[in-house]
């Protein structure tokens, strides 16, 4: 059962290995999802109020954007390292936050600008009409501007989720990378099957999450013109 022969006649994929490891694969997949998607959830919880604040007090936005840009340029591994002293190393329990907190910061670097852009995408006449009908600032932000920003926010969440799912695997270098564990496992044994399987699973997770978010947007924004986003 060989897919293709690599050097030395070793098959690129050994299907029987997959059959023997379904339990482990399922566990790693579940853990991977937890490590990747909790940051998106936390990121949204922080980014929405933060974006609203930046929309309300405009002077807040340039410094916030600056911080977001710097965060975006950090090597993920370095950021993981930074939190080892606080949450420890290894997989599961408290040590998971060594991965989750940095990935939350990364998601913020994508989500905050998107929340602000979304709020700014509200057409001026709509904002004016809301004010003129007697919406106060806060009520207008929450009932009018935020719902209109949803498509842009979800577009950001899609990018953040896909990168987050891919980035979790870097955590394997400090012993907690979900499916990424199999990269190092395969690499150290010169055995391609686990690397390919985990890569395929990670890509599949990313594409499925993306699909779920697209579906969520369709459901949440029936008012959006089809095809504009």
């Amino acid at each position, binding site marked *: 059962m060989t897919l293709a022969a*690599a*050097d030395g006649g070793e098959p*690129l994929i050994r299907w029987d290995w997959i059959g023997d490891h379904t339990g482990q694969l399922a566990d790693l997949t579940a853990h991977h999802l937890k490590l990747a998607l909790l940051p998106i959830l936390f990121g949204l919880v922080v980014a929405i109020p933060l974006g609203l604040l930046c929309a309300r007090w405009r002077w807040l936005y340039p410094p916030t954007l600056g911080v977001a*840009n*710097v965060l*975006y*340029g*950090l*090597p*993920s*591994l*370095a*950021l993981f*390292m*930074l939190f080892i*002293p606080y949450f420890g190393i290894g997989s599961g329990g408290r040590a998971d936050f060594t991965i989750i907190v940095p990935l939350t910061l990364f998601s913020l670097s994508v989500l905050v600008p998107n929340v602000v852009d979304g709020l700014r995408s509200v057409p001026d006449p709509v904002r004016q009409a809301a004010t003129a009908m007697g919406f106060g600032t806060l009520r207008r932000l929450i009932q009018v501007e935020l719902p209109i920003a949803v498509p842009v926010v979800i577009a950001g969440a899609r*990018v953040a989720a*896909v*990168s987050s*799912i*891919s980035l979790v*695997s*870097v955590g*394997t*270098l*400090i012993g907690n990378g979900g499916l*990424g564990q199999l*990269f*190092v496992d*395969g*690499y150290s044994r*010169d*055995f*391609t099957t686990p*690397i*390919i399987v*985990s*890569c395929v699973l*990670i*890509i599949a997770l*990313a*594409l499925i999450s*993306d699909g779920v978010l697209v579906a969520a947007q369709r459901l949440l924004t029936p008012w959006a013109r089809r095809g504009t986003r």
Partner: protein
Amino acid sequence: MNLADQIKDAWTWLTASAHWSGGDGIPHRLLEHLGYSALALVIAALIALPLGALVGHTGRGGFAVVTVANFARSIPTLGLLLLVVTVTSIGLTPVIIPLIALATPPILVNTYEGVRGVDPDIKDAARGMGMTGPGILLKAEVPVAMPLILLGLRTAAIQVVATATIAAYAGIGGLGRYIVDGLARKDYPSVVGGSVLVVLLAVIVQLAFVGIRRAVVSRGLRN
């Protein structure tokens, strides 16, 4: 160990003169890092800029472009690197391939969206003045889309610079050596110091793009 100590140790590490010369010195590693990053970025740009511009101009294949970009974004960089190393051997190829995969999506999508999003009236006026397809693309659409195209290049550049640390896993150096070696030796000042250098590089790339934007984007389009 608290944050202040981490910073202090990293500073000591960064300013130690021994770290500033020789094959494992900061200048040499920095050049390696920049070299791999630039090579990957240039190749990605050569693929993504023409493709994105063409698809945006013709309007055909947009869905495919976005799908491919999404797919490429989801590829785990480290996994691809270790896979290529395992299948071939250590060297430049296993580093450059994942970095290209990383850099292509933002350039491709932004170029496509930028060109596609050019006001139809501008295209219409260009055609009305007698411009043909390539003329419209190069003289009207690309300049108008330039802010978005540069944004895509910037995003790609920053991600590549931050991720080129993985070159250390393919045995070809770069600033990642300080992080990877430090990790193996539990030498945290080296890890933090190496990370600081990568961040500085990313910030410099950001600033460089501010300059490029000044030079390349028409003043009528800024802001």
